[in-house]
Protein backbone atom coordinates (compact mmCIF):
# COMPACT_ATOMS: atom_id res chain seq x y z
CA UNK A 1 0.00 0.00 0.00
CA UNK A 2 2.62 2.47 1.15
CA UNK A 3 4.89 1.00 -1.46
CA UNK A 4 2.33 1.61 -4.15
CA UNK A 5 1.81 5.21 -3.09
CA UNK A 6 5.55 5.88 -3.09
CA UNK A 7 5.80 4.27 -6.47
CA UNK A 8 3.06 6.43 -7.89
CA UNK A 9 4.59 9.57 -6.43
CA UNK A 10 7.94 8.69 -7.93
CA UNK A 11 6.37 7.90 -11.28
CA UNK A 12 4.48 11.16 -11.22
CA UNK A 13 7.62 13.10 -10.41
CA UNK A 14 9.49 11.36 -13.19
CA UNK A 15 6.68 12.14 -15.58
CA UNK A 16 6.70 15.80 -14.64
CA UNK A 17 10.45 15.97 -15.16
CA UNK A 18 10.09 14.20 -18.50
CA UNK A 19 7.43 16.68 -19.52
CA UNK A 20 9.85 19.43 -18.63
CA UNK A 21 12.50 17.88 -20.82
CA UNK A 22 10.04 17.36 -23.65
CA UNK A 23 9.03 21.00 -23.42
CA UNK A 24 12.61 22.22 -23.39
CA UNK A 25 13.64 19.77 -26.08
CA UNK A 26 10.88 20.81 -28.40
CA UNK A 27 11.64 24.44 -27.71
CA UNK A 28 15.31 23.97 -28.54
CA UNK A 29 14.39 22.08 -31.68
CA UNK A 30 11.95 24.73 -32.80
CA UNK A 31 14.40 27.53 -32.16
CA UNK A 32 17.18 25.87 -34.06
CA UNK A 33 14.81 25.57 -37.00
CA UNK A 34 13.95 29.20 -36.67
CA UNK A 35 17.60 30.14 -36.42
CA UNK A 36 18.45 28.22 -39.54
CA UNK A 37 15.46 29.78 -41.26
CA UNK A 38 14.16 26.35 -42.16
CA UNK A 39 10.57 26.39 -43.12
CA UNK A 40 8.83 23.76 -41.11
CA UNK A 41 5.20 24.67 -41.44
CA UNK A 42 4.21 22.45 -38.55
CA UNK A 43 6.20 24.44 -36.02
CA UNK A 44 4.09 27.39 -35.03
CA UNK A 45 0.88 26.07 -36.50
CA UNK A 46 0.08 22.48 -35.54
CA UNK A 47 2.87 22.62 -33.00
CA UNK A 48 3.46 25.54 -30.68
CA UNK A 49 5.66 28.50 -31.38
CA UNK A 50 8.94 28.19 -29.61
CA UNK A 51 10.30 31.66 -28.96
CA UNK A 52 10.68 32.94 -25.42
CA UNK A 53 7.54 35.02 -25.58
CA UNK A 54 5.38 32.00 -26.39
CA UNK A 55 7.34 29.27 -24.66
CA UNK A 56 9.36 30.83 -21.88
CA UNK A 57 12.27 28.67 -20.72
CA UNK A 58 11.40 26.28 -17.91
CA UNK A 59 14.07 27.63 -15.65
CA UNK A 60 12.67 31.13 -16.04
CA UNK A 61 9.25 29.82 -15.07
CA UNK A 62 10.62 28.07 -12.01
CA UNK A 63 12.71 31.05 -11.07
CA UNK A 64 9.66 33.28 -11.29
CA UNK A 65 8.18 31.54 -8.23
CA UNK A 66 10.95 33.13 -6.23
CA UNK A 67 10.72 36.64 -7.69
CA UNK A 68 9.31 39.40 -5.54
CA UNK A 69 6.35 40.91 -7.35
CA UNK A 70 6.11 44.63 -7.95
CA UNK A 71 3.96 46.53 -5.47
CA UNK A 72 4.23 43.74 -2.90
CA UNK A 73 6.94 42.37 -0.70
CA UNK A 74 6.11 38.78 -1.52
CA UNK A 75 7.53 36.32 -3.99
CA UNK A 76 5.19 34.89 -6.62
CA UNK A 77 5.19 31.46 -5.00
CA UNK A 78 3.92 32.95 -1.77
CA UNK A 79 1.32 35.03 -3.60
CA UNK A 80 0.10 31.99 -5.49
CA UNK A 81 -0.17 30.08 -2.24
CA UNK A 82 -2.33 32.82 -0.75
CA UNK A 83 -4.44 33.02 -3.89
CA UNK A 84 -4.82 29.24 -3.72
CA UNK A 85 -6.23 29.49 -0.22
CA UNK A 86 -8.68 32.09 -1.43
CA UNK A 87 -9.77 29.89 -4.31
CA UNK A 88 -9.85 26.86 -2.07
CA UNK A 89 -12.32 28.57 0.24
CA UNK A 90 -14.63 29.37 -2.66
CA UNK A 91 -14.23 25.89 -4.08
CA UNK A 92 -14.82 24.24 -0.71
CA UNK A 93 -18.10 26.04 -0.19
CA UNK A 94 -19.13 25.32 -3.78
CA UNK A 95 -18.14 21.71 -3.32
CA UNK A 96 -20.15 21.39 -0.13
CA UNK A 97 -23.24 23.06 -1.52
CA UNK A 98 -22.90 21.18 -4.81
CA UNK A 99 -22.68 17.87 -3.00
CA UNK A 100 -25.77 18.59 -0.97
CA UNK A 101 -27.72 19.85 -3.97
CA UNK A 102 -26.50 16.98 -6.15
CA UNK A 103 -27.44 14.40 -3.54
CA UNK A 104 -30.81 16.09 -3.09
CA UNK A 105 -31.48 15.84 -6.81
CA UNK A 106 -30.27 12.26 -6.86
CA UNK A 107 -32.62 11.34 -4.02
CA UNK A 108 -35.57 13.02 -5.68
CA UNK A 109 -34.86 11.25 -8.95
CA UNK A 110 -34.31 7.94 -7.19
CA UNK A 111 -37.61 8.36 -5.44
CA UNK A 112 -39.68 8.75 -8.57
CA UNK A 113 -39.15 7.10 -11.93
CA UNK A 114 -41.19 9.66 -13.92
CA UNK A 115 -39.21 12.43 -12.27
CA UNK A 116 -36.00 10.70 -13.31
CA UNK A 117 -37.21 10.25 -16.88
CA UNK A 118 -38.41 13.82 -17.08
CA UNK A 119 -35.63 15.71 -15.37
CA UNK A 120 -32.44 13.78 -16.01
CA UNK A 121 -32.09 15.04 -19.60
CA UNK A 122 -32.26 18.60 -18.32
CA UNK A 123 -29.76 17.96 -15.58
CA UNK A 124 -27.44 16.80 -18.36
CA UNK A 125 -28.33 19.70 -20.66
CA UNK A 126 -27.67 22.19 -17.87
CA UNK A 127 -24.00 21.38 -18.17
CA UNK A 128 -23.76 22.79 -21.67
CA UNK A 129 -24.67 26.23 -20.35
CA UNK A 130 -21.41 28.12 -20.20
CA UNK A 131 -20.53 29.37 -16.75
CA UNK A 132 -19.92 32.80 -18.17
CA UNK A 133 -23.62 33.08 -18.92
CA UNK A 134 -24.64 32.46 -15.35
CA UNK A 135 -21.87 34.40 -13.63
CA UNK A 136 -23.52 37.82 -13.80
CA UNK A 137 -26.84 36.42 -12.65
CA UNK A 138 -25.29 34.88 -9.62
CA UNK A 139 -23.16 37.84 -8.69
CA UNK A 140 -25.94 40.36 -8.98
CA UNK A 141 -28.59 38.25 -7.33
CA UNK A 142 -26.18 37.34 -4.61
CA UNK A 143 -25.52 40.96 -3.76
CA UNK A 144 -29.08 42.02 -4.10
CA UNK A 145 -31.32 39.24 -2.97
CA UNK A 146 -29.54 37.18 -0.42
CA UNK A 147 -30.28 39.48 2.49
CA UNK A 148 -32.23 36.89 4.40
CA UNK A 149 -29.08 35.01 5.32
CA UNK A 150 -27.79 35.35 8.85
CA UNK A 151 -24.40 36.46 7.52
CA UNK A 152 -23.58 39.06 4.96
CA UNK A 153 -23.21 37.96 1.36
CA UNK A 154 -19.66 38.11 0.14
CA UNK A 155 -18.76 38.22 -3.52
CA UNK A 156 -16.58 35.17 -3.16
CA UNK A 157 -19.72 33.25 -2.25
CA UNK A 158 -21.06 34.09 -5.68
CA UNK A 159 -18.02 32.37 -7.09
CA UNK A 160 -18.84 29.41 -4.89
CA UNK A 161 -22.31 29.27 -6.37
CA UNK A 162 -20.78 29.25 -9.83
CA UNK A 163 -18.56 26.38 -8.71
CA UNK A 164 -21.67 24.65 -7.37
CA UNK A 165 -23.06 24.66 -10.87
CA UNK A 166 -20.22 22.40 -11.96
CA UNK A 167 -20.08 20.24 -8.84
CA UNK A 168 -23.69 19.26 -8.39
CA UNK A 169 -23.78 17.47 -11.72
CA UNK A 170 -21.38 14.56 -11.20
CA UNK A 171 -22.77 14.13 -7.70
CA UNK A 172 -26.34 14.00 -8.96
CA UNK A 173 -25.61 11.56 -11.77
CA UNK A 174 -23.30 9.26 -9.83
CA UNK A 175 -25.37 9.62 -6.69
CA UNK A 176 -28.39 8.42 -8.60
CA UNK A 177 -26.42 5.47 -9.90
CA UNK A 178 -25.32 4.75 -6.36
CA UNK A 179 -28.80 5.02 -4.89
CA UNK A 180 -29.99 2.60 -7.53
CA UNK A 181 -27.06 0.26 -7.03
CA UNK A 182 -28.46 -2.04 -4.32
CA UNK A 183 -29.30 -5.46 -5.69
CA UNK A 184 -33.01 -6.23 -6.00
CA UNK A 185 -32.81 -8.85 -3.26
CA UNK A 186 -31.39 -6.29 -0.85
CA UNK A 187 -34.28 -4.00 -1.61
CA UNK A 188 -36.66 -6.91 -1.14
CA UNK A 189 -35.00 -7.72 2.14
CA UNK A 190 -35.81 -4.22 3.38
CA UNK A 191 -39.30 -4.60 2.05
CA UNK A 192 -39.67 -7.88 3.89
CA UNK A 193 -38.89 -5.96 7.07
CA UNK A 194 -41.74 -3.63 6.13
CA UNK A 195 -39.17 -0.81 6.10
CA UNK A 196 -40.35 2.61 4.94
CA UNK A 197 -38.82 4.42 1.97
CA UNK A 198 -36.86 6.62 4.33
CA UNK A 199 -35.54 3.68 6.30
CA UNK A 200 -34.49 2.01 3.08
CA UNK A 201 -32.84 5.24 1.99
CA UNK A 202 -30.82 5.70 5.14
CA UNK A 203 -29.95 2.11 5.83
CA UNK A 204 -29.48 0.76 2.35
CA UNK A 205 -29.50 3.16 -0.57
CA UNK A 206 -27.31 5.88 0.91
CA UNK A 207 -24.61 3.61 2.33
CA UNK A 208 -24.62 1.62 -0.89
CA UNK A 209 -24.05 4.81 -2.85
CA UNK A 210 -20.92 5.75 -0.92
CA UNK A 211 -18.38 4.29 -3.38
CA UNK A 212 -20.22 5.94 -6.27
CA UNK A 213 -20.33 9.14 -4.31
CA UNK A 214 -16.60 9.10 -3.83
CA UNK A 215 -16.07 8.56 -7.53
CA UNK A 216 -18.28 11.61 -8.06
CA UNK A 217 -16.58 13.64 -5.35
CA UNK A 218 -13.23 13.17 -7.01
CA UNK A 219 -14.63 14.69 -10.18
CA UNK A 220 -16.58 17.28 -8.23
CA UNK A 221 -13.55 18.42 -6.24
CA UNK A 222 -11.66 19.12 -9.43
CA UNK A 223 -14.71 20.68 -11.00
CA UNK A 224 -15.17 22.96 -8.02
CA UNK A 225 -11.67 24.33 -8.56
CA UNK A 226 -12.36 24.84 -12.25
CA UNK A 227 -15.64 26.49 -11.38
CA UNK A 228 -14.01 28.77 -8.87
CA UNK A 229 -11.31 29.76 -11.32
CA UNK A 230 -13.75 30.52 -14.11
CA UNK A 231 -16.03 32.26 -11.66
CA UNK A 232 -13.24 34.48 -10.43
CA UNK A 233 -12.41 35.46 -13.98
CA UNK A 234 -16.02 36.33 -14.61
CA UNK A 235 -17.15 37.85 -11.42
CA UNK A 236 -14.48 40.23 -10.24
CA UNK A 237 -13.68 39.22 -6.69
CA UNK A 238 -10.64 40.61 -5.01
CA UNK A 239 -8.42 37.54 -5.18
CA UNK A 240 -7.92 33.97 -6.14
CA UNK A 241 -6.02 31.92 -8.67
CA UNK A 242 -8.53 32.57 -11.42
CA UNK A 243 -8.13 36.29 -11.10
CA UNK A 244 -4.40 35.84 -10.94
CA UNK A 245 -4.41 33.74 -14.11
CA UNK A 246 -6.57 36.25 -15.89
CA UNK A 247 -4.45 39.20 -14.88
CA UNK A 248 -1.24 37.42 -15.74
CA UNK A 249 -2.82 36.68 -19.10
CA UNK A 250 -3.39 40.41 -19.47
CA UNK A 251 0.22 41.28 -18.89
CA UNK A 252 1.52 38.18 -20.57
CA UNK A 253 3.47 40.25 -23.05
CA UNK A 254 5.80 41.59 -20.40
CA UNK A 255 6.10 38.42 -18.36
CA UNK A 256 4.94 35.12 -19.84
CA UNK A 257 6.66 33.18 -17.04
CA UNK A 258 4.18 34.57 -14.54
CA UNK A 259 1.22 33.10 -16.37
CA UNK A 260 2.93 29.74 -16.71
CA UNK A 261 3.74 29.78 -13.03
CA UNK A 262 0.14 30.62 -12.15
CA UNK A 263 -1.18 27.80 -14.32
CA UNK A 264 1.21 25.42 -12.60
CA UNK A 265 -0.14 26.71 -9.29
CA UNK A 266 -3.68 25.91 -10.36
CA UNK A 267 -2.60 22.45 -11.49
CA UNK A 268 -1.08 21.78 -8.11
CA UNK A 269 -4.24 22.92 -6.37
CA UNK A 270 -6.40 20.71 -8.60
CA UNK A 271 -4.26 17.67 -7.98
CA UNK A 272 -4.13 18.47 -4.29
CA UNK A 273 -7.90 18.43 -3.81
CA UNK A 274 -8.13 15.31 -5.95
CA UNK A 275 -5.61 13.55 -3.74
CA UNK A 276 -7.37 14.67 -0.57
CA UNK A 277 -10.62 13.09 -1.71
CA UNK A 278 -8.82 9.98 -2.90
CA UNK A 279 -7.18 9.68 0.50
CA UNK A 280 -10.48 10.02 2.34
CA UNK A 281 -12.00 7.49 -0.02
CA UNK A 282 -9.31 4.92 0.73
CA UNK A 283 -9.71 5.52 4.43
CA UNK A 284 -13.48 5.17 4.48
CA UNK A 285 -13.87 2.32 2.01
CA UNK A 286 -10.77 0.54 3.20
CA UNK A 287 -12.13 0.56 6.73
CA UNK A 288 -15.28 -1.15 5.54
CA UNK A 289 -13.41 -3.50 3.24
CA UNK A 290 -15.23 -2.15 0.20
CA UNK A 291 -14.01 -1.58 -3.31
CA UNK A 292 -13.85 1.82 -4.95
CA UNK A 293 -15.85 2.17 -8.14
CA UNK A 294 -14.76 4.24 -11.08
Amino acid at each position, binding site marked *: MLQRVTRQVVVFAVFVVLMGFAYSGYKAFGQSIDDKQHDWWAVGSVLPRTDDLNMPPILDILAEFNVIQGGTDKVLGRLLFEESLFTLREAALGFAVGTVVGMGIAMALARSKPLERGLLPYVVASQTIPLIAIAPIVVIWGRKNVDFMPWEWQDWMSVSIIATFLTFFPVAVNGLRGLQSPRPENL*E*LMESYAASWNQTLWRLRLPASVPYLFAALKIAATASIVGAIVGEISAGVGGGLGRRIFLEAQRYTTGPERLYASVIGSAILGIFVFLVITGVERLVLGHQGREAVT
Partner: protein
Amino acid sequence: MSAHAVAVKAASKVFNQGKSNEVHALDEIDLTVEDGEFITLIGPSGCGKSTLLRLIAALTEPTGGEVEVKGKSAEQARLDQDYGMAFQRAGLFDWRTVSKNIELPLELMGWSRGDRVRRAGEMLELVKLPEFGGHHPSELSGGMQQRVAIARSLAFSPSLLLMDEPFGALDEMTREHMQDELLRIWSETHTTVVFVTHSIPEAAYLSSRVVVMSPRPGRIATIVDVDLGDRSDDTREDPAFFEKVTEVREALRAVESA
Protein backbone atom coordinates in the same frame (compact mmCIF):
# COMPACT_ATOMS: atom_id res chain seq x y z
CA MET B 1 -59.53 -19.78 11.15
CA SER B 2 -56.67 -22.01 10.07
CA ALA B 3 -53.57 -22.76 12.10
CA HIS B 4 -51.49 -23.27 8.95
CA ALA B 5 -48.20 -21.43 8.83
CA VAL B 6 -48.85 -20.71 5.18
CA ALA B 7 -51.94 -21.22 3.08
CA VAL B 8 -51.76 -20.49 -0.62
CA LYS B 9 -55.21 -20.74 -2.15
CA ALA B 10 -55.62 -20.92 -5.92
CA ALA B 11 -52.96 -18.24 -6.30
CA SER B 12 -51.99 -17.13 -9.79
CA LYS B 13 -49.44 -14.62 -10.96
CA VAL B 14 -49.26 -13.07 -14.39
CA PHE B 15 -46.53 -10.56 -15.12
CA ASN B 16 -47.09 -7.73 -17.60
CA GLN B 17 -50.73 -8.72 -17.93
CA GLY B 18 -52.19 -7.76 -21.29
CA LYS B 19 -48.87 -6.70 -22.75
CA SER B 20 -46.93 -8.40 -25.48
CA ASN B 21 -44.43 -9.74 -22.97
CA GLU B 22 -47.05 -11.29 -20.68
CA VAL B 23 -45.69 -14.17 -18.56
CA HIS B 24 -47.94 -16.62 -16.80
CA ALA B 25 -45.61 -17.34 -13.90
CA LEU B 26 -47.96 -19.19 -11.54
CA ASP B 27 -51.28 -20.83 -12.18
CA GLU B 28 -53.78 -21.75 -9.47
CA ILE B 29 -51.31 -22.82 -6.86
CA ASP B 30 -52.73 -24.52 -3.76
CA LEU B 31 -50.32 -25.22 -0.96
CA THR B 32 -50.50 -25.34 2.79
CA VAL B 33 -47.50 -25.49 5.06
CA GLU B 34 -47.97 -26.68 8.61
CA ASP B 35 -46.27 -25.16 11.60
CA GLY B 36 -42.75 -26.47 12.07
CA GLU B 37 -42.59 -28.05 8.63
CA PHE B 38 -39.53 -27.84 6.38
CA ILE B 39 -40.81 -27.54 2.83
CA THR B 40 -38.69 -27.36 -0.31
CA LEU B 41 -39.70 -25.97 -3.68
CA ILE B 42 -37.87 -27.47 -6.63
CA GLY B 43 -38.38 -27.22 -10.36
CA PRO B 44 -36.78 -26.15 -13.61
CA SER B 45 -35.48 -22.65 -13.95
CA GLY B 46 -38.25 -20.15 -14.52
CA CYS B 47 -41.03 -22.33 -13.15
CA GLY B 48 -41.99 -19.74 -10.58
CA LYS B 49 -40.33 -20.90 -7.36
CA SER B 50 -39.05 -17.46 -6.47
CA THR B 51 -42.33 -15.92 -7.47
CA LEU B 52 -44.23 -18.27 -5.15
CA LEU B 53 -41.86 -17.45 -2.31
CA ARG B 54 -42.30 -13.75 -2.98
CA LEU B 55 -46.06 -14.15 -2.97
CA ILE B 56 -45.83 -15.69 0.47
CA ALA B 57 -43.56 -12.85 1.55
CA ALA B 58 -46.04 -10.35 0.09
CA LEU B 59 -43.23 -8.82 -1.93
CA THR B 60 -45.51 -9.16 -4.91
CA GLU B 61 -49.29 -9.51 -5.18
CA PRO B 62 -51.10 -12.46 -6.66
CA THR B 63 -53.17 -11.67 -9.74
CA GLY B 64 -55.65 -14.31 -8.62
CA GLY B 65 -56.41 -16.32 -5.49
CA GLU B 66 -55.04 -15.46 -2.09
CA VAL B 67 -52.17 -16.12 0.26
CA GLU B 68 -52.51 -16.37 4.01
CA VAL B 69 -49.67 -16.44 6.47
CA LYS B 70 -50.43 -17.39 10.07
CA GLY B 71 -54.11 -16.99 9.46
CA LYS B 72 -53.88 -13.42 8.20
CA SER B 73 -53.22 -11.89 4.83
CA ALA B 74 -49.66 -12.15 3.57
CA GLU B 75 -49.41 -8.37 3.41
CA GLN B 76 -50.43 -8.09 7.07
CA ALA B 77 -47.87 -10.73 7.97
CA ARG B 78 -45.19 -8.73 6.17
CA LEU B 79 -46.14 -5.60 8.05
CA ASP B 80 -46.14 -7.59 11.28
CA GLN B 81 -42.71 -8.91 10.37
CA ASP B 82 -43.83 -12.47 10.82
CA TYR B 83 -41.15 -14.01 8.64
CA GLY B 84 -37.45 -13.85 8.02
CA MET B 85 -35.93 -14.09 4.58
CA ALA B 86 -32.63 -15.22 3.02
CA PHE B 87 -31.46 -15.16 -0.58
CA GLN B 88 -28.95 -16.92 -2.81
CA ARG B 89 -26.42 -14.19 -2.35
CA ALA B 90 -25.93 -13.58 1.33
CA GLY B 91 -26.84 -9.95 0.63
CA LEU B 92 -25.05 -8.61 3.68
CA PHE B 93 -24.46 -4.89 3.80
CA ASP B 94 -20.75 -4.35 3.25
CA TRP B 95 -20.69 -1.19 5.28
CA ARG B 96 -22.04 -2.79 8.43
CA THR B 97 -20.09 -5.09 10.65
CA VAL B 98 -21.35 -8.62 11.00
CA SER B 99 -23.09 -7.75 14.27
CA LYS B 100 -24.65 -4.65 12.82
CA ASN B 101 -25.94 -6.69 9.91
CA ILE B 102 -27.69 -9.02 12.27
CA GLU B 103 -29.04 -6.06 14.21
CA LEU B 104 -30.53 -4.46 11.10
CA PRO B 105 -34.05 -5.94 11.35
CA LEU B 106 -34.04 -5.31 15.08
CA GLU B 107 -33.18 -1.66 14.51
CA LEU B 108 -36.09 -1.38 12.12
CA MET B 109 -38.36 -2.94 14.72
CA GLY B 110 -37.24 -0.43 17.28
CA TRP B 111 -35.36 -2.67 19.66
CA SER B 112 -33.17 -0.93 22.21
CA ARG B 113 -29.43 -0.93 21.66
CA GLY B 114 -28.71 -3.23 24.54
CA ASP B 115 -31.27 -5.80 23.42
CA ARG B 116 -29.96 -5.69 19.89
CA VAL B 117 -26.38 -6.26 20.90
CA ARG B 118 -27.35 -9.12 23.15
CA ARG B 119 -29.44 -10.78 20.47
CA ALA B 120 -26.75 -10.36 17.81
CA GLY B 121 -24.37 -12.10 20.21
CA GLU B 122 -26.78 -15.00 20.70
CA MET B 123 -27.30 -15.34 16.97
CA LEU B 124 -23.56 -15.40 16.32
CA GLU B 125 -23.32 -18.21 18.86
CA LEU B 126 -26.08 -20.04 17.05
CA VAL B 127 -24.29 -19.90 13.70
CA LYS B 128 -20.95 -20.58 15.37
CA LEU B 129 -19.26 -17.30 14.52
CA PRO B 130 -19.06 -15.69 17.96
CA GLU B 131 -15.70 -14.03 17.37
CA PHE B 132 -16.60 -12.38 14.07
CA GLY B 133 -19.10 -9.78 15.27
CA GLY B 134 -16.75 -6.87 14.72
CA HIS B 135 -15.60 -7.93 11.25
CA HIS B 136 -16.85 -6.55 7.97
CA PRO B 137 -18.52 -9.07 5.65
CA SER B 138 -15.75 -8.78 3.07
CA GLU B 139 -13.41 -10.43 5.57
CA LEU B 140 -15.56 -13.56 5.70
CA SER B 141 -15.68 -16.52 3.34
CA GLY B 142 -18.82 -17.18 1.29
CA GLY B 143 -20.03 -19.87 3.66
CA MET B 144 -19.52 -17.68 6.70
CA GLN B 145 -21.39 -14.84 5.02
CA GLN B 146 -24.27 -17.14 4.29
CA ARG B 147 -24.36 -18.14 7.96
CA VAL B 148 -24.52 -14.50 8.96
CA ALA B 149 -27.40 -14.02 6.55
CA ILE B 150 -29.23 -16.87 8.21
CA ALA B 151 -28.50 -15.39 11.62
CA ARG B 152 -29.91 -12.11 10.37
CA SER B 153 -33.08 -13.78 9.11
CA LEU B 154 -33.54 -15.52 12.45
CA ALA B 155 -32.60 -12.61 14.68
CA PHE B 156 -36.11 -11.49 15.53
CA SER B 157 -37.26 -15.08 16.03
CA PRO B 158 -39.71 -15.24 13.16
CA SER B 159 -41.71 -18.40 13.25
CA LEU B 160 -41.45 -18.60 9.46
CA LEU B 161 -38.28 -18.63 7.41
CA LEU B 162 -38.34 -18.08 3.63
CA MET B 163 -35.15 -19.02 1.80
CA ASP B 164 -34.45 -18.64 -1.91
CA GLU B 165 -31.52 -20.86 -2.93
CA PRO B 166 -29.48 -19.71 0.03
CA PHE B 167 -26.69 -22.19 -0.63
CA GLY B 168 -26.64 -21.89 -4.41
CA ALA B 169 -23.36 -20.03 -4.53
CA LEU B 170 -21.42 -22.34 -2.21
CA ASP B 171 -19.18 -25.22 -3.17
CA GLU B 172 -20.43 -28.71 -2.48
CA MET B 173 -18.60 -29.45 0.72
CA THR B 174 -19.41 -26.10 2.28
CA ARG B 175 -22.94 -26.57 1.13
CA GLU B 176 -23.37 -29.90 2.86
CA HIS B 177 -21.95 -28.37 5.98
CA MET B 178 -24.42 -25.48 5.81
CA GLN B 179 -27.29 -27.87 5.29
CA ASP B 180 -26.44 -29.60 8.52
CA GLU B 181 -26.19 -26.26 10.30
CA LEU B 182 -29.57 -25.20 8.99
CA LEU B 183 -31.19 -28.43 10.11
CA ARG B 184 -29.68 -28.02 13.54
CA ILE B 185 -30.98 -24.48 13.83
CA TRP B 186 -34.35 -25.53 12.49
CA SER B 187 -34.73 -28.24 15.10
CA GLU B 188 -33.49 -25.93 17.85
CA THR B 189 -35.79 -23.04 16.98
CA HIS B 190 -38.89 -24.90 15.75
CA THR B 191 -39.19 -22.53 12.84
CA THR B 192 -41.26 -23.27 9.77
CA VAL B 193 -39.09 -23.18 6.65
CA VAL B 194 -40.01 -22.72 3.00
CA PHE B 195 -36.85 -23.36 1.01
CA VAL B 196 -36.20 -22.98 -2.71
CA THR B 197 -33.43 -25.03 -4.29
CA HIS B 198 -32.14 -26.41 -7.57
CA SER B 199 -30.35 -29.33 -6.03
CA ILE B 200 -32.18 -32.65 -5.79
CA PRO B 201 -29.99 -34.09 -3.01
CA GLU B 202 -30.37 -30.87 -1.06
CA ALA B 203 -34.13 -31.00 -1.37
CA ALA B 204 -34.23 -34.63 -0.36
CA TYR B 205 -31.83 -34.16 2.52
CA LEU B 206 -33.46 -31.13 4.11
CA SER B 207 -37.18 -31.35 3.78
CA SER B 208 -40.18 -32.99 5.25
CA ARG B 209 -41.94 -32.41 1.92
CA VAL B 210 -40.50 -31.60 -1.52
CA VAL B 211 -42.82 -29.60 -3.75
CA VAL B 212 -41.96 -30.29 -7.40
CA MET B 213 -43.13 -27.57 -9.75
CA SER B 214 -43.67 -27.53 -13.50
CA PRO B 215 -43.09 -24.53 -15.72
CA ARG B 216 -45.12 -22.38 -18.09
CA PRO B 217 -47.37 -21.79 -16.34
CA GLY B 218 -45.94 -22.69 -12.93
CA ARG B 219 -47.97 -25.44 -11.29
CA ILE B 220 -47.39 -27.90 -8.49
CA ALA B 221 -46.68 -31.19 -10.23
CA THR B 222 -46.05 -33.56 -7.34
CA ILE B 223 -45.35 -33.40 -3.66
CA VAL B 224 -42.81 -35.93 -2.41
CA ASP B 225 -43.04 -36.76 1.29
CA VAL B 226 -39.68 -37.43 2.84
CA ASP B 227 -39.15 -39.09 6.16
CA LEU B 228 -35.52 -39.83 6.79
CA GLY B 229 -35.64 -39.27 10.55
CA ASP B 230 -32.77 -37.37 12.15
CA ARG B 231 -30.25 -36.48 9.49
CA SER B 232 -26.57 -37.10 9.94
CA ASP B 233 -23.59 -37.58 7.68
CA ASP B 234 -24.57 -41.18 7.25
CA THR B 235 -27.92 -40.19 5.87
CA ARG B 236 -26.20 -38.95 2.72
CA GLU B 237 -24.91 -42.43 2.04
CA ASP B 238 -28.10 -44.16 3.10
CA PRO B 239 -30.00 -46.10 0.40
CA ALA B 240 -33.24 -44.62 1.75
CA PHE B 241 -31.81 -41.20 0.96
CA PHE B 242 -30.82 -42.24 -2.56
CA GLU B 243 -34.31 -43.57 -3.00
CA LYS B 244 -35.80 -40.18 -2.20
CA VAL B 245 -33.27 -38.53 -4.50
CA THR B 246 -34.39 -40.82 -7.27
CA GLU B 247 -38.05 -40.17 -6.49
CA VAL B 248 -37.57 -36.43 -6.73
CA ARG B 249 -35.50 -36.82 -9.90
CA GLU B 250 -38.18 -38.93 -11.51
CA ALA B 251 -40.79 -36.34 -10.65
CA LEU B 252 -38.61 -33.63 -12.17
CA ARG B 253 -37.95 -35.67 -15.29
CA ALA B 254 -41.65 -36.11 -15.77
CA VAL B 255 -42.14 -32.37 -15.43
CA GLU B 256 -39.33 -31.57 -17.86
CA SER B 257 -40.40 -33.92 -20.60
CA ALA B 258 -44.06 -32.87 -20.37
